[in-house]
């Protein structure tokens, strides 16, 4: 029972935060400066997610295979490779390195 309650509470809380930003956007009379900053804030959050997911696992270093794979993917992105190539390339390098015994 507490399992259902916990999952429901997490769902309600998450949805509330999702909806709050969407609805607040119109209520708040945001200055042009703040409007310009919002996509930058989102970019900072997404970059932080990508960086922490690249380097860390359970608050410790994730090993070399993953950052190496991500670096290869970033190189492909820089060379303007299509999204699918970036994703598959990063996964292939990480998986290949692990096959070779790199953690």
């Amino acid at each position, binding site marked *: 029972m507490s399992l259902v309650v916990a999952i429901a509470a997490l769902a309600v809380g998450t949805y509330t935060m*999702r909806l709050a930003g969407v609805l607040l956007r119109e209520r708040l009379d945001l200055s042009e400066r703040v409007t310009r900053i919002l996509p930058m804030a989102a970019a900072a959050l997404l*970059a932080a997610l*990508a960086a922490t997911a690249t380097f860390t696992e359970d608050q410790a270093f994730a090993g070399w295979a993953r950052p190496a*794979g991500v670096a*290869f993917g970033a190189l492909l992105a820089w060379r303007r490779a299509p*999204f699918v190539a970036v994703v598959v390339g990063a996964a292939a390098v990480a998986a290949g390195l692990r096959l070779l015994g790199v953690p």
Partner: protein
Amino acid sequence: MRTAQRTLTRDAVTIGLAMVAIGASFGAIAIASGLPWWAPSLMSTIVFAGGAQFMAVGLLVAGNPVAAVLAGLLLNARHLPFGLAVAGALGPSLRARLVGAHLMTDEVVAFTLAEDDPARRRRTYWIIGITLFTTWNVGTVLGAAFASVAADPAAFGLDAAFPAGLIALLWPTLRDPATRDVAVAGAAVAVLATPLLPAGLPVLLSLLGLGVLLLRSRKGAAA
């Protein structure tokens, strides 16, 4: 225009396939940890936030539902600033906002902000959002059903695919020097804070990266 549509379709298929695989590993891990068969699918449907779901499974199995909720909410607090940033892409009607808000994920926000044109932003938000919701839930069911065979995502390098995909989506935005400085500073703060703070907080702290704008404007004023 047709090329753009084809690119969007291809990108949606790519990320959709990755989501089936990661959703399957979520379903499998949840079942293998001892949760009942319905729990992973209930989470994937009504919570629909991968990182929080993985974390909640660990804490729920450890018998700590309160910590599971609080940690999950802390991890998901980033959706509030995300909502502020992409609100315009959901559509004007209340129904579009009520439904669209539930589809908001890191990937959807990244795909949406990579577009400039408002009409394309909206199409991207909905196509990617619906694709991810569907594939994440299909993957969860498959993983829960075949828990014994669904493999560790790291074996296929999927753990590297996720951040690489985010970087690819962020790339066009990072061409703007101010945005790039903010993003790099924010990412550095988050990585450095990760060993020290509970999950979720380091990513929120990346908003401190906006402080770079103050330095930039001061430098601009001095020059």
